[in-house]
């Protein structure tokens, strides 16, 4: 039962993802890609779990830590760079002032 429910969660998450993006203006394709990319770094949670559950197994701790590093590189860098791009777009209102 639990596994079936997880499959449902997978299916519904996918359907939701399909629905969430309707029309995107071309100007936003790149920032949206970059933002979604940052979100895909959510694997950091898996890396964290690995470290916490490693129970002193040093090789596992190292693998987990490296994995966490990669994930956070993706997440932090991704969000920052998206913000930088979007900051360029949103000069509109600041110029109108």
């Amino acid at each position, binding site marked *: 039962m639990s596994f079936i429910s997880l499959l449902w969660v*997978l299916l519904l*998450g*996918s359907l*939701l*993802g*399909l629905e*969430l*993006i309707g*029309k995107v203006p*071309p*100007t*936003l*394709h*790149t*920032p*949206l890609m*970059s*933002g*979604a*990319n*940052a*979100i*895909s*770094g*959510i*694997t*950091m*949670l*898996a*890396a*964290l*779990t*690995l*470290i916490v*559950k*490693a*129970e002193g*197994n040093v090789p596992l701790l190292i*693998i*987990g*830590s*490296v*994995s*966490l*590093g*990669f*994930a956070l590189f*993706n*997440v*932090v*860098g*991704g*969000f*920052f*760079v998206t913000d*930088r791009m979007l*900051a360029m*777009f949103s*000069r509109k209102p600041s*110029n109108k002032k």
Partner: protein
Amino acid sequence: MNLPVIIKFVIDLLAVLLLALGIKGLSKVKSARDANRLAAFAMSLSVVGLLSYYLGTSGIAIQAWIWIIIGSIIGSLFGAILAKKVPMTSMPETVALFNGCGGMSSLLVALGVAIFPISSGQENFDFFKSLINEVSISVSIFVGAITFTGSIVAMAKLQGWLSTPGWTQSKVRHFVNIVFAVASLIAFFDLINGNTSSIWLLVIVSSLLGIGVTLPIGGADMPVVISLLNSYSGIAAAAAGFVVDSQLLIVAGAMVGAAGLILTQVMCKGMNRSLVSVLFGGSLSAQSTASSGSGEYTNITSCSVEECALTLEAANKVIIVPGYGLAVAQAQHTLREVTKKLEQSGIEVVYAIHPVAGRMPGHMNVLLAEADVPYEQLKEMDVVNPDFPATDVVLVLGANDVVNPQAKNDSSSPLYGMPVLDVQEARTVFVIKRGMSAGYSGIKNDLFDLPNTSMVFGDAKKVLNDLIGELKDLGVGEK
């Protein structure tokens, strides 16, 4: 069902809600920036949820804390520095790099779990459960490895570190890739059958598959490929979610995977391409060298920078059409200097921005904003198109396909149907490019043959620098 479980559930739920809102908001201009921050907040929230859950139940050992802190600090630091430092022209490769690292992270987690099976806290361990575990580990490794190597190849090609080898354009590549795919499949089933050693085979062949698929694709198609690989990294995250039994990971991964797929489709459409031809058609530019040779130009007028400067001096209204070539030449700052000069002599200057001009969709807006072009001067295609007939001079800077009149007139053209800028309706058009080679689509540009079009050959940055000199000599912009 104790308190930590409930708290974690509520936090996870909130995080998913905010992530969904974030993805949705990122697709609207008004809300995009806030949405990005919202998503970032949701991600930190999810970390807090996870850590507090473990603190509340099994606890977190000091040793674990140390490794957590080391990993996070190094990763975040490098990420933040790169994100701050990288120039706007290198956005595509930066996104590719980040994406690849996400894939690598999923790959490592799956490897770790596979090599050192951890006690998952589930008491009722049964065969079925371990089967699911092995399937999700394999999927995570497979997709993670493809994402990683594919993204790194994409980055290297975009950076110019890697060119497209000739053999990858022949049919041989399909055969090679099929071999890799079959080998992955064998390793996959071997692994599920309990043969743990084949894990390394899986890692290697899926890495090779990622390289083999991405290498033949031309640089101009890279945004689509990166978007697709981004979708993959979502799938890898969802698979990792099955490995560590986290619904949050499954939902977030699935959402990103599906949204990435849609975005890939939308992007393809915006560039008048199909996903299949991007993935299996090989490099467009490789094909085009042939076809562009056959397109014969009959009526080319070439002119010097000096002539161009003279015409500009006499103009009242000038429209600039920046394209891919401008981005490659990184000439946006030089361009800004030229337009400043023109403006100072009272000439009205406007930039016409085609949605897919540049190296990525929306790239041109970012580049010009970085060069401090005032936002009011950037006009979108639909807004600026009616203005061309009343324009004296159009400067086409390293743009080609986006100003090709074939897209409107010639229904047999592969470009047919793509919206373009109607530059030919202006009085005079100057096209600044290095030679007669075709653009991204590899198609002859009828614009170049028109009587009111003159070509100014040379690298965009060099030509613009020369232009500044000429304008200075003419006393333009020095009241």
